[in-house]
């Protein structure tokens, strides 16, 4: 995590230095721009962030094994895509959760759908970050263009599964 943050700041300060070389006015405009963007974006983010932790408290234990097993087929893939979309939090929450599901008996193809659903639909990320920065119209366009794709990923994983015997982790 810290590695990524340091990387962002190095690049950001580098870009700011380039602005400064062009002229101090340009650099000042960049800082003022960033400040006012923060001012507009922060309130929504602060209200949206607790949602991830709250939803995590609501997930009942044992639902993955019951609904997302290797034999759950297309229904399991669709369910997993939707569940992934509701899955809150960053990779530090999602990947350990998927590992737990796999070990508890969920199917790999269903888990591919779940991760894809989490990455593409990610309701929480959409509300906490995309909405404050890019706005509702962008989200509608993006979701319309991509909401079927997690299912597609899960179904292609089902087809390719025989080539990756280690994916079941059992």
């Amino acid at each position: 995590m810290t590695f990524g943050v340091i990387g962002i700041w190095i690049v950001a300060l580098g870009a700011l230095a380039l602005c400064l070389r062009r002229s101090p006015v340009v650099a000042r405009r960049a800082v003022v721009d960033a400040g006012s963007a923060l001012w507009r974006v922060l309130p929504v983010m602060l209200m949206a962030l607790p949602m991830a932790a709250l939803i995590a408290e609501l997930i009942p234990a044992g639902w993955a094994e019951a609904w997302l097993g290797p034999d759950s087929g297309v229904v399991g893939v669709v369910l997993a895509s939707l569940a992934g979309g509701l899955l809150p939090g960053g990779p530090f929450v999602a990947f350990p959760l998927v590992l737990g599901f796999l070990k508890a008996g969920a199917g790999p193809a269903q888990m591919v759908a779940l991760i894809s659903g989490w990455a593409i639909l990610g309701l929480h990320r959409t509300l906490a970050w995309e909405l404050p920065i890019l706005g509702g119209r962008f989200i509608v366009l993006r979701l319309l263009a991509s909401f079927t794709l997690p299912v597609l990923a899960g179904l292609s994983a089902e087809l390719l599964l025989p080539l990756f015997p280690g994916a079941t982790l059992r």
Partner: protein
Amino acid sequence: MLRRNATFLVISALTLAAAVAVWVLRGMGAVQHALAATWDLILTVLPSILGGLLLSAALRQLVPPGALARWMGAESGLRGLLVATAAGMVMPGGPVAAFPVVLVLAQAGADRGALIAFVLAWSLNGFQRIVVWELPILGPDFALLRLICGLPLPILAGLFARWLPIRWTPADAPGMQPRHETKP
């Protein structure tokens, strides 16, 4: 202004409803547990938010409007989507850094298909996330299977987005500061 306040109110209502649901179903301790986790998350992401917004603002001063139109514009075809997908995969950092970069690309002339492909490539197949999280936790077989299934999706989404009759311009984004106070 009204739209931004409406967004804030809707989000607040959703979070409050979730809090009430947790309180009723799981008790007050669970609510406190969730709030403590949120505080940790805020402390973790705040440096990235600040860095990402500063990066976005500085780049928008440097990259002239329309500079990327040839590479990612509406006329860029499949090649534009491939360029956007590759850019998304190498994009480091979390959503707070990546979404402001979308504004930079949009202002520089990337069309909606390329922007959607960029966002999806970053969130699905971001290189950093695969190496740091997916590979160590879920193992090479699963990670490779997932990557192969995810690889074509950003291109498909970009093609869909170009086909859908929904227009989006950077001016629709709340994170975009109008260049001058005079609006047309």
